[in-house]
């Protein structure tokens, strides 16, 4: 079920998808029947700068994890002297526990295509690329067919809807690297180079794909645009909170009764998400911890769950909304196992470019391996904290900086589990867990 507030009858996506179900795709006739492409039609009749202004007014922020104001990004691309520009959709959804972009691409492809076309019109780009991860063949097929249908219907390609505006869109398949979800690594990947992050500045908005100004946004971000442009910033701001307008797609998984994808307005609490959307903890067990924001997010105990889903409120409590993944652990789960899984994932996916991420993760994995094998010591915990701090403080890219989030938060909230795994910490000294 969707959590609706303030009497709102509809949201941005109006989707709900629970494990096991495979709802039908909204094809082009369906999408048009629901008012699809009205926003594009309206935008084409106005100045592109007006589109950017509406996105700024709506307060949309990037949904891929970094939450950068989308309108501002658009303005940076738009204000370039260089006229060859690109719009890129980051559909390299690699964050463990996240499956929102896949769903949008397989079920609401035209909402994404319309959003990209709106973005292209706003920033003055004539070419676009959807970078879809290799592991999503269904999404690639769906987008491929949808692009063809949109071109056929005059909604993509030359002179869209009879206007002067042309926009050509193609798919680029990733090759399996998590790191290529980092926007500059993604650009390098498209250019045929190694998928490693580039120095910023220059930002992609100045020097992106092939050195040209480039707007890169997540699937969910771009798919928000038809609603914002079609229904206006005021309507959009009626969803969510003043700090964080709109809605968020939540990928809910783990030990809850209803696992699936839910759209919620900003401002609901994580507890509400778990109870209302998730239908509570499976098998009547007790909630132990929630991993918010994916593998690069934080692990928090139940008492933190009253925190509202809102950028400001979460930042204050060092909770990362990230991609919107919420992974629930019941009281049978081991925190250390969870952290070991995350650390192994990041060690495998690190691009290896910078020392803190590459060597930090190597050491972190050794130490967690030792802890899980009963060979850890109290001094290992201090090292874990120091290595993770160094990764956060000094890694080259955002992914490296976030790779230790699960670890550092779990060490803060569930230290007793780590201590219990240390051979040199006496049982008498082992404190009660906070969870």
């Amino acid at each position, binding site marked *: 079920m969707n959590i609706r507030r303030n009497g709102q009858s509809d949201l941005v996506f109006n989707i709900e998808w629970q494990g096991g179900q495979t709802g039908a795709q909204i094809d082009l006739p369906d999408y048009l029947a629901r008012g699809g492409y009205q926003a594009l039609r309206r935008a084409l009749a106005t100045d592109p700068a007006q589109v950017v202004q509406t996105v700024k007014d709506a307060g949309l922020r990037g949904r891929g994890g970094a939450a950068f104001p989308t309108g501002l990004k658009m303005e940076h691309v738009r204000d370039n002297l260089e006229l060859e520009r690109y719009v890129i959709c980051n559909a390299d959804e690699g964050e463990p526990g996240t499956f929102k972009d896949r769903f949008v691409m397989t079920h609401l492809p035209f909402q994404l295509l319309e959003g990209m076309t709106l973005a292209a019109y706003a920033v003055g780009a004539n070419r676009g690329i959807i970078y879809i991860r290799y592991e999503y063949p269904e999404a690639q097929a769906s987008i491929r067919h949808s692009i063809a249908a949109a071109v056929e219907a005059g909604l993509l390609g030359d002179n869209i809807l009879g206007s002067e505006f042309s926009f050509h869109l193609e798919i680029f398949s990733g090759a399996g*690297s998590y*790191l290529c979800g980092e926007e500059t690594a993604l650009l390098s990947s498209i250019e045929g180079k*190694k*998928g*490693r992050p580039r*120095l910023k500045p220059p930002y992609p908005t100045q020097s992106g794909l092939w050195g040209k100004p480039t707007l890169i946004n997540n699937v969910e971000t771009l798919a928000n645009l038809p609603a914002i442009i079609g229904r206006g910033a005021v309507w959009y701001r009626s969803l969510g909170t003043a700090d964080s307008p709109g809605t968020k797609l939540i990928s809910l998984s783990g030990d809850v009764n209803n696992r699936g994808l839910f759209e919620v307005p900003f401002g609901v609490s994580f507890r509400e998400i778990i109870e209302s959307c998730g239908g509570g903890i499976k098998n009547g067990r007790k909630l132990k911890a929630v991993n918010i924001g994916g593998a690069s997010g934080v692990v928090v105990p139940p008492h933190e769950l009253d925190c509202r889903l809102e950028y400001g409120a979460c930042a204050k409590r060092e909770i990362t909304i990230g991609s919107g993944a919420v992974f629930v652990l019941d009281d049978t789960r081991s925190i250390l196992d969870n952290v070991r899984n995350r650390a192994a994932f990041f*060690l*495998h*996916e*690190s*691009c*290896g*470019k*910078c*020392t*803190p991420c*590459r*060597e*930090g*993760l*190597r*050491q972190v994995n*050794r*130490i967690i391996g030792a802890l899980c094998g009963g060979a850890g010591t109290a001094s290992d915990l201090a*090292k874990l904290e*120091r*290595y993770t*701090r*160094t990764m*956060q*403080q*000094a*890694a*080259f890219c955002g992914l490296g*900086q976030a790779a230790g989030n699960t670890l550092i938060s779990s060490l803060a909230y569930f230290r007793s589990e780590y201590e219990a795994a240390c051979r040199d910490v006496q049982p008498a000294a082992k404190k009660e867990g906070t969870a």
Partner: protein
Amino acid sequence: MEQVAMKINGAAVSAPQGSTILEAARQLGVKIPSLCHHPDQRVKANCRVCVVEVEGSRNLMPACSTRVAPGMEIRTNTARVRETVQTILELILSNHPQDCPNCIRNGNCELRQLAADYGMREYKADIEPVALPIDTSTLSLVRDPNKCIKCGRCAEVCHHVQETGILYSHFRSTDIGVAPEYGKQLSEVNCVLCGQCVLVCPTGALHEKDDIPAVWAAIDNHEKHVVVQVAPAVRVSIAEEFGQAPGTIATDKLVSALRFAGFDRVFDTDFTADLTILEEGHELLRRLQTGGTLPMLTSCSPGWIKFMEHNYPDLLPHLSTCKSPQQMFGALAKTYYAQLSGIAPEDIFVVSIMPCTAKKFESARPEMADSGYRDVDAVLTTRELGRLLRQAGVDFNKLPPGEFDAPLGVSTGAAALFGATGGVMEAALRTVYEVVVQEELTEVNFTEVRGMAGIKEATVDLNGLPVKVAVAHGLAHARRLMDDVRAGQADYAFVEVMCCPGGCIGGGGQPYGTGTASREARIAATYAVDAAMPLRKSHHNPAVQQLYQDFLGQPLGEKSHHLLHTAYCDRS
């Protein structure tokens, strides 16, 4: 340039707009550690040891890639910065062999120096044993991936300065490494063995093949008459091995040091550099007069020759057939000098002191045995000579001056120029002019071909015949010129190419720390050496005149053809 006002560690300072925090801090005497940073290279920001605090920034910022901004408050010495830098060093060292005394870089390793500076006496990290195979496949270079800290400096120089593209950063995560394509060895790819990668490596991951033991063995063998030749570029760089500033001229101390070390005769490659000018100058004239292949390309630089053999085999007829001065010396040492001294050539052991790693490869080419023996037996780089002299107990800076032995130690200022880019061209023009015009050249300095510009051009009037020449150094620039030659768009008569930036004074065998600044200092010193010589034209060298009179006959004669000229092979 506009100045930006800011604060570093609380002190109000200013730095030129556009400079990085690292540049600004170093200018102001604030030391910030670095490993992947190199002043001549693009910013990589891989190693992260240069992180500093910038007020208002949540994370630490890399000083190498962050530009100064007005009002910026930078702190380089806080507990947070120190802990992070020490942790990063600890992380690097945890994956690095713990055998500094066994390492060729013991004493000048940048990583070891930082470890010492930051008090890294106790490795708190678990040591990850590394045992990757060491590439010893070439005669010039050794690549030890176990000591690689993945800074990327070698790949940068290989791709962007030399454009040879041999060393790649490959794989990801902890598998990351820098190596030739598909796990091949250096001998299996088109590496020209220039050693520019060695010059920029902060650790012992890339180094020259150490030939010091072979030289000691020859010196210690009293049956052997060991003669040594010293390249022009070494006299302006060897002092750096003993703490002197780049650009220090140490010719006389160098001679004494070599005698001290036990060489029986101390000769000079400058002697055969003068000889090269006579042979190559006449070859140029013959090509001009008989419609030979033009432009003629110089052939002194073995990395450049190997580059041509790999990449431009169709242009090999353009290369001068002259051997390099090193190899001319070897061929004469075991023929002419053997005759003069009455020592059997098989008892003569020829050692070269070269600024170059590719010279090791050149000396072992099968063509280089025209004396009937291997012409040059061992090649030491400037760095190896520094080590050999330290082993010999030489207190270099306190040595009395010495003089080269005759006759293979007699030279002119023209020969000294060989060390700098444009030098061979200038030396050749001094001789060719007088041979063709038949009157004295009074202005001997051809300044158009001097300096660090990548490609230089000049036109010289030879009795009404305008001769257009060009000079390139660094293989990226050489490639530009060769593409023009291949496309028939180069109307030069003569082109000088040196493999390394700045010429041999910037060679891959030169002391660590070689960069644009030290290259410029050594070039200035090279011109000072030339200017101070009583004779400045190769054809005025009396020992060379004597050599032609007593032994060779004439330039391009029968004996020259046999001993001093060679052929090249297609390695594509």
